[in-house]
């Protein structure tokens, strides 16, 4: 019973997160401006992080938690650098 509950919930959750990643990819491809693409990339990072967390629960392995943490950190740095670039035209002043 609890095996079935976890399997169904994880399947539905991973499908939802995959659809969310598709929505973010659509916004990143369509634009229309650069800040929309950066925002969509940020959302894509977050969705990928949540996808890895769900995958960690699915496999019962805590290794994926560290990958999710690294994705979160890199996503933060990437979005800040891109926002800085959009504002100033350079990243490091």
């Amino acid at each position, binding site marked *: 019973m*609890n095996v079935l509950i976890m*399997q169904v919930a994880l399947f539905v959750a991973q499908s939802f997160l995959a659809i*969310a990643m598709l929505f973010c990819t659509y916004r990143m491809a369509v634009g229309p401006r650069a800040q*929309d693409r950066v925002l969509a990339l940020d959302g894509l990072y977050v969705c990928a992080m*949540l996808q890895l967390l769900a995958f960690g629960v699915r496999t019962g392995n805590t290794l994926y938690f560290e990958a999710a943490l690294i994705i979160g950190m890199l996503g933060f740095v990437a979005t800040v650098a891109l926002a800085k670039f959009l504002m100033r035209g350079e990243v490091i002043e």
Partner: protein
Amino acid sequence: MSVAYAEVPLWAAILSAAFILLGATLALIGAFGLARLGSFYDRIHAPTLATSWGAGGMVMGSMIFFTAAAARPVIHEILIGVFVTVTTPVTLMMLGRAAIYRDRSDNNPGIPPIVKSDRPSETDENRADA
């Protein structure tokens, strides 16, 4: 693969599944808003659903699952929740400021004018720490 599922009690499986579904649903709603909303300043609000309770729900579900599976408190996932909660306002503030700066320099309509407030902005000539 399903060995760990069988080890958790039923209440933990139900609770963990509910939190995981909540998190994934909120992430989906946030991404749907990101794809559907009209202007950038509307869209910038949508992904915060995924980063607040989306990440919170997934982290809670993961914590409950691993705590029940390992029969000891496993709370290192809370690092992700704290980190995402702290960093999202910073990134979205910077992105919003960059967007409004670009819109102002392009003279796009619908952008509020620069108000001379008591807080010195970066464009003030008498900036003290210049």
